[in-house]
């Protein structure tokens, strides 16, 4: 019954993809945010050092004897050298012209307001530079003069720093992503765990286990479990109805059949004509077959009902088998069949005596039914390890390479059934009883090869 399921996608995979996707998005956002932040910080700190340098140069500018002169402090430029190995340029200018430094430095020609430094990015001598210009008013020869100081530095060191920061931010982003992905796998795994455990619990159930699911499940799964339980209930009701119907039908058919058979027997005694007698015998045979089938259907319904609510009591298998053998002795003797019972001691299990009796009787019935005259049927109870066995061995020819498993299915009959009356339910009943008790039914050829050996195995308590 493992029909293919129409699978469309996977919850786990979808969840995983969504979580990993969000992680990737967040990692990218983190990466760019950190990068942007450190870039700003790096640029600002570089600007601040440039400003400090320019300001200290500006402070050294003074008017001496009416002339503007500058005495650049050593630290003004060496502080830039301490930060990075970058090239440094400077210029001190007044409206009259460039006082000293790199005259062609591409910085603001426009007057810069005092205390409002102007930062610029430009290209100079084949490299990108960052420049700051600061201004100050001096009084030279009685007139105010605005002196502008510019300090510029190439950005190789800053670029190297940014590259390093870029790498750090990248590691951070990648690390975040890897960690988040790991957590996503875990989260996806754990969120489908209840579903998986419910599935396992249901698929572990026996074929007849139609109890509702009572285990606790997450809220999201309760509609599913509710539907499942309702489905199980309906299935159970439907099964019970059909069993009831069969049992009812069998019961109703059996009683009139007994009347018809009795009438046929009476008629047979009265009829002289040989042809008519043969017809009547054929009729009686057919009636027997029908009533037996009806009986077995009833048995089967009874077995189904009792196994659904199995009552376990101490049952002595030896006594049970001996009792049955004795009861069937007359039937066996009618066919000149020797029915022997053997036992190596009491074998007891926990179980339903009526069911067990029914199972053993069906097997014994079969053995007697299929055996020819002057054959022997042996019943044995054996203790075998943890198992208590009832073996029924006949000399009815056995199975020639047949599928013995198939014989236990409903309404399947062996190749040698021939004219023998039977419904094909006997071994099914025996197997269902065995399985209801946690045991199994083994059908094989006997060791002598003369017939079959059917064994009911039950776990000992």
């Amino acid at each position, binding site marked *: 019954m493992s029909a293919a399921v129409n699978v469309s996608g996977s919850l786990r995979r979808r969840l995983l993809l969504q979580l990993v996707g969000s992680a990737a998005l967040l990692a990218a956002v983190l990466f760019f945010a950190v990068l942007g932040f450190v870039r700003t910080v790096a640029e600002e700190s570089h600007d601040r050092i440039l400003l400090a340098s320019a300001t200290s140069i500006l402070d050294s500018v003074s008017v001496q004897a009416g002339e503007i002169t*500058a005495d650049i402090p050593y630290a*003004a430029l060496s502080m830039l050298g301490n930060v990075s190995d970058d*090239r440094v340029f400077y210029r001190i200018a007044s409206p009259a012209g460039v006082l000293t430094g790199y005259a062609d430095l591409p910085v603001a020609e426009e007057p810069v307001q005092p205390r409002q430094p102007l930062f610029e990015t430009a290209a100079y001598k084949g490299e990108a530079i960052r420049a700051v210009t600061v201004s100050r008013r001096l009084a030279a020869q009685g007139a105010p003069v605005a002196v502008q100081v510019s300090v510029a530095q190439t950005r190789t060191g800053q670029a190297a720093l940014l590259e390093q920061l870029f790498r750090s931010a990248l590691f951070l982003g990648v690390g975040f992503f890897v960690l988040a992905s790991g957590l996503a796998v875990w989260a996806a795994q754990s969120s489908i765990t209840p579903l998986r455990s419910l599935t396992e619990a249901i698929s572990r159930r026996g074929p007849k286990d139609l109890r509702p699911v009572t285990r606790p499940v997450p809220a999201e799964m309760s509609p599913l479990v509710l539907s499942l339980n309702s489905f199980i209930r309906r299935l159970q009701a439907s099964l019970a109805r059909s069993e009831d119907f069969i049992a009812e039908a069998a019961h109703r058919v059996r009683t009139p059949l007994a009347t018809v058979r009795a009438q046929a027997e009476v008629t047979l005694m009265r009829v002289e004509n040989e042809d008519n007698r043969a017809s009547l015998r054929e009729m009686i045979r057919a009636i027997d077959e029908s009533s037996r089938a009806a009986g077995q259907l009833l048995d089967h319904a009874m077995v189904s009902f009792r196994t659904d609510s199995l009552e376990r009591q101490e049952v002595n298998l030896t006594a049970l088998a001996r009792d049955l053998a004795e009861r069937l002795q007359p039937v066996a003797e009618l066919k000149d069949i020797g029915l022997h019972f053997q036992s190596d001691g009491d074998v007891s299990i926990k179980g339903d005596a009526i069911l067990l009796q029914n199972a053993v009787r069906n097997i014994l019935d079969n053995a007697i039914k299929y055996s020819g005259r002057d054959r022997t049927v042996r019943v044995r109870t054996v203790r075998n390890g943890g198992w208590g066995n009832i073996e029924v061995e006949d000399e009815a020819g056995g199975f020639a390479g047949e599928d013995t498993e198939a014989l236990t299915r409903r309404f399947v009959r062996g190749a040698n059934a021939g004219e023998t009356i039977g419904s094909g339910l006997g071994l099914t009943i025996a197997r269902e009883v065995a399985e209801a008790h946690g045991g199994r039914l083994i059908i094989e050829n006997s060791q002598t090869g003369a017939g079959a050996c059917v064994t009911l195995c039950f776990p000992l308590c």
Partner: protein
Amino acid sequence: MRHALFSALLTLLAFAAAAAAGFEVEERHWIGPEDGTPLRVISTTDTAILEPLIGSFLEEHPEAAIEYTVANSSEVMKAVLEGQEPFDVALSSAMDLQTKLANDGFTRPHRSAATALIPEWGEWRSHVFAFSLEPASIVVSAAAFSGGEALRTRQDLISLLRAEPERFRGKVGTYDVSLSGLGYLFATQDARTSETYWRLMEVIGSLDPQLFCCSSSMIESVASGEILVAYNVLGSYARARRDLADKIIVIDPEDYTHLMMRSAVLLKGGRQPGLARSFADHLAAAAWSQPPAANYPFAQPPVAFVDSASPKRPIQLGPGLLVYLDAEKRRRFMAEWFSAVRKH
């Protein structure tokens, strides 16, 4: 072997090209095979000093020859700035000028296993590569100081000069900072480091000092007894003069001793960039391998010795050196210096 190689041609071309170029050349040599690929080196270092290193370089590069031009540091600067002659490598003791060349974009960067040997303070942005570490020392006459006067710091020197002005009048020498780039570098670094320097200059200035263009002439003047004390002389040169060892005493002041680094830069205008890199590597490997190459001409740079606790510290390469090259700053410094030294 080595002699065979570069005795092949050693032509003195001194002053030949000087007129054509806008800079002053002291001497010019062709070292190596006549038809060799020429590596053009302009240097402040005398040929004789670097000859062993050049020889071993040519042994490794038999296809090459070196045209070695000697000029003083400001002329080296001028030669590069004018760019009339396509020099490949500039070697100079003027760290400030080398730094300016690198800062103003006249040099090529270079990184290699050999440059990785250079200590962090001996290299600037992979453009300036130091290959020596030489102290700015005080050289005194052994005859005049046989009495065993303690002369360990600048303060000692000041006290001595003040105590006996008549003995030292006209007998003290130092660099003329307007003539020598190295003298200017030493003077500016001194001025930056300690106020003692200006007091020393005031004292020297009161003694009618002699001003020199270069270390070697100061050393010879001390040896001859013409002067008794020379301040800020290249200690490496003085110690290299084994012939004068008993005539002069070389003192590295204990208050502080600046260490000048001779350095190489690879020039953008050069025609043999590959050979130039090899040459820089050769110099760096010779100087900074432990131990240095056998033919390395300077005293082994005391790399392990250079730390914050030591009074010997290398002049720091970097943009700080550009400050005293500022025309305005230089004008002010010169004025101040000459007013101190040329008082009388």
